[in-house]
């Protein structure tokens, strides 16, 4: 997910390297809207389970859970779903450390699972997430919420809830920063220096 | 046979001299330039001239401990290939160990090896007879018959196995006195070395390989020098490998016990740290020991406590080394690298000069083994068994160039100094410019 290339200092120093397209307050507003949409489309959201995809999808899912509670007054189960071992590019990169999969106590069988991720790009991460879900249980339905949809899908996958549609070229990079991990909230649009595609 | 004039070599590393070979013997030695093919001074006539500027002339080397494998294991070495390897290593005489198949424990087998040596023509082969029948340590072999045979065996050894029964050892030591023989002991207490794979110490503890304690060697040496003293015999100890063994031999000699001892080139250079690679090319009997042992062995060879260098040339086919450690055969080839290792470990460290090398690798081994005509001084009238060494040469050991049928050298790719340029066996060149003649 990280589109920064630490070995290219231009990414850090070039003024045009990364331009914020969403700032902290924008992100908060967007999440509030998504929470309302979930409640509306899920008719009260009483069987919703939020599963964030590590790393930043988990923070977004937790934030959404807080917002949902604010709307419905009930706690929404929230967990995480690591998709590392389900990736289709597992063998193209060094073996990766695993993220945490934490399924809420009551499981996902018969529930409406809302997958939460930061950026929707090729769709391959979500494909992997659907496979992972299949090994864990059988939800009533699965929906997808993303903070940013940057286009360039390679699979027939679309998001149910989108914070911001961000048309990009493949030369551009999109990076989401969240306070829990990065110390601040922002979505940054940058220009790729080298390196092949692969980020989201 | 025509004459050969070796011009300008440093004889035993000392004076620069010309040496004229006529037929099988050294005809003359003189200061450089005094022998002249043009007729002034001593007349060399139509001698072939070898320009030996900068080279060292040594007496042909004598190896008291070689495994030629024939009969029985011709896939690893034959008398022919083994003697060719010996010639390339500067040797003019080798003593062939008895652990062949069948074992050289009868007059018939030793005569066969002796005859094969004669036929090879590269190096004199003196068979060693087994001490006990089948090397089994139970019953004396017909030592007298082997001595009386055409092979004229004077050295007896069960090498590869230890004559561990004290009574058998005592009897053997006594018995060979009748014809001036000597028993060469492979000192390895068998019970202490059951399942042993490498030197017992820090490295074996880590690698989980069965330990081969120094005391397994030292206890036998201690016993055998005392036995030799008791019965008034002489005893030769094969391949000393530990500092403790050195101390025991030093003590025995100081006591006047008639003991001689050998060290292999590999024990002068390599340590058990190499076993960390689990590469069986470093698997050898006795095992590679520690740095401290290596230093003690060098010092002992320098001060004469250890009398000679012997190669323990032990050829093995590739498949016997290309396997896991425990399954691998023990031993290393050594004839073609021995002098280089000695130059590296003893000469270049200042421990031994070239005259000392001639003593430890030619004079003394010939004397211990009674190799007639070998290990003689380089002077007029002596047999022309000679070796010419280029000490300035530096090169990586490349086993592909070996004459030996086997390649199990621990020095592959290692840079070692010195190169045998010529070897002469009774006036005939067996090696010319480093190649077999």
């Amino acid at each position, binding site marked *: 997910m990280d589109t920064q290339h630490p070995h290219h200092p231009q990414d850090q120093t070039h003024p045009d390297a990364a331009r914020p397209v969403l700032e902290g307050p924008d992100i908060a507003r967007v999440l509030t809207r998504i929470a309302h949409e979930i409640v509306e489309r899920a008719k009260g959201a009483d069987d919703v389970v939020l599963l964030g995809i590590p790393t930043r999808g988990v923070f977004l899912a937790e934030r959404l859970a807080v917002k949902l509670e604010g709307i419905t007054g009930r706690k929404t189960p929230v967990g995480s779903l690591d998709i590392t071992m389900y990736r289709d590019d*597992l063998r193209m990169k060094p*073996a990766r450390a695993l993220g945490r*999969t934490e399924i809420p106590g009551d499981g996902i069988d018969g529930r409406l699972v809302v997958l939460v991720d930061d950026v929707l790009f090729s769709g391959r991460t979500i494909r992997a997430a659907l496979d992972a879900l299949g090994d864990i249980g059988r939800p009533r339905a699965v929906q997808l919420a993303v903070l940013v949809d940057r286009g360039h899908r390679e699979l027939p996958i679309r998001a149910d809830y989108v914070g911001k549609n961000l048309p990009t070229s493949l030369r551009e990079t999109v990076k989401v920063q969240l306070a829990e991990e990065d110390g601040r909230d922002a979505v940054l649009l940058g220009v790729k220096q080298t390196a092949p595609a692969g980020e989201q | 046979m025509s004459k050969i004039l070796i011009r300008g070599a440093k004889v035993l590393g000392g004076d620069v001299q010309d040496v004229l070979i006529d037929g099988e013997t050294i005809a003359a030695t003189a200061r450089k330039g005094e022998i002249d093919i043009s007729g002034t001074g001593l007349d060399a006539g139509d001698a072939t001239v070898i320009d030996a500027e900068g080279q060292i002339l040594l007496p042909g080397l004598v190896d008291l401990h070689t495994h030629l494998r024939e009969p029985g294991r011709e896939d690893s070495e034959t008398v022919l290939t083994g003697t060719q390897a010996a010639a390339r290593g500067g040797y003019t005489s080798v003593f062939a160990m008895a652990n062949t198949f069948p074992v050289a424990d009868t007059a018939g087998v030793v005569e066969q090896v002796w005859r094969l040596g004669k036929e090879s023509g590269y190096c004199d082969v003196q068979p060693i007879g087994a001490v006990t029948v089948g090397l089994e340590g139970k019953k004396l072999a017909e030592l007298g018959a082997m001595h009386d045979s055409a092979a004229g065996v004077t050295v007896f050894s069960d090498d590869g196995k230890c004559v561990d029964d004290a009574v058998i050892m005592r009897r053997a030591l006594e018995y060979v006195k009748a014809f001036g023989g000597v028993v060469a002991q492979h000192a390895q207490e068998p019970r202490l070395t059951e399942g042993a*794979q490498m030197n017992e110490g820090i490295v074996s503890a880590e690698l989980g390989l069965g330990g081969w304690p120094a005391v397994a060697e030292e206890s036998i040496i201690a016993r055998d020098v005392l036995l030799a003293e008791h019965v008034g015999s002489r005893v030769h100890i094969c391949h000393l490998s530990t500092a403790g063994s050195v101390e025991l031999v030093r003590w025995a000699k100081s006591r006047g016990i008639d003991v001689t001892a050998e060290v292999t080139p590999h024990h002068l250079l390599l340590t058990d740290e190499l076993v960390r690679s*689990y590469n069986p090319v470093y698997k050898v009997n006795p095992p590679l020991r520690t740095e401290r042992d290596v230093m003690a062995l060098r010092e002992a060879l320098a001060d004469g406590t250890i009398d000679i260098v012997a190669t323990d040339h032990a050829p093995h086919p590739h498949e016997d080394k290309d396997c*896991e450690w425990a399954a691998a055969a023990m031993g290393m080839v050594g004839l073609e690298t021995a002098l280089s290792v000695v130059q590296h470990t003893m000469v270049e460290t200042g421990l031994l000069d070239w005259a000392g090398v001639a003593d430890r690798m030619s004079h003394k081994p010939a004397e211990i083994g009674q190799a007639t005509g070998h290990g003689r001084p380089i002077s007029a009238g002596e047999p022309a068994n000679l070796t010419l060494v280029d000490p300035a040469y530096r090169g990586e050991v490349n086993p592909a160039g070996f004459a030996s049928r086997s390649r199990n050298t621990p020095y592959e790719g290692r840079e070692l100094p010195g190169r045998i340029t010529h070897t002469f066996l009774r006036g005939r060149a067996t090696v010319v410019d480093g190649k077999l003649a």
Partner: protein
Amino acid sequence: MMRHLISAADLTRDDAVLILDTTEEMARVSDRPIKKLPALRGRTICNLFFEDSTRTRISFEAAEKRLSADVINFAAKGSSVSKGESLKDTAQTLEAMGVDAVVIRHSASGAPFRLATSGWIDAPVINAGDGTHQHPTQALLDAFTMRRRLVGKDALGQDLAGKRITLVGDVLHSRVARSNVDLLHTLGAEVTLVAPPTLLPVGVEHWTCDVSYDLDAVLPKSDAVMMLRVQRERMNAAFFPTEREYSRRYGLDGERMAKMPEHGIVMHPGPMVRGMEITAEVADSDRCTVVEQVANGVHTRMAVLYLLLGGNEPAVSHARPTDSENK
């Protein structure tokens, strides 16, 4: 990068902690209805067992299958090996059949190292126990068990700093002891070996641990005691006089166990020789982690297999200097 897992001594602290952390994730999969992950789909792993060890083989096999690898089991007994085929030929034959990794158990110390470094095959090699040398996955599963019991479940990122671990028994012939001493030291634990002097290797004084001959003195200072198996045959080789004397001096019974701190655990790599090094009372007590170790073994091996084989290169670095490998 480390392609192979040959010795616990090759692992850095960070490598080891990464494996333990990954093991935690693998352990969670076992709670799911479908205990399977697709990480090694399409990869073929050969369990090459030159020495009988049903439990280690089954543990590896379970780990491989849970990661969706194709598994080939090769037991040397009754195979071409018993007809004299060499390790090299066997390994090359298997590789020619398209094996992506080899898990090897061999009675000869160093056989996995040879297989990994001699250029015989290209496939990664995982040591499942070699002679009296190493058994790195056993050490990892032991460390995982200790971390869970002594530091806490889900102690991600943490090592065993300051934990006092005692290994008791036949250290001389034990690959488990060697692996554990190496790994536990790397993880910051303080290790003490307790054994009769005959069952300690010459050179043990250079190991990164303490040595004692007195079990009773060490027990009160032990957060974990690992009892090593003592084979009865050792008695015949004069390593100790009788089974009874061994048990009296070095066996763990209920009375002795009571000398341990309350939180202290008793471990055993199995198979246990009840009545010899451990009494039934201890083996069946709550403090004994034997069964837990078996379960953790599968998860640990899943973690190792995933980290070595899950990508195009391993996620574990190599502590051993490369020049110690053969060319």
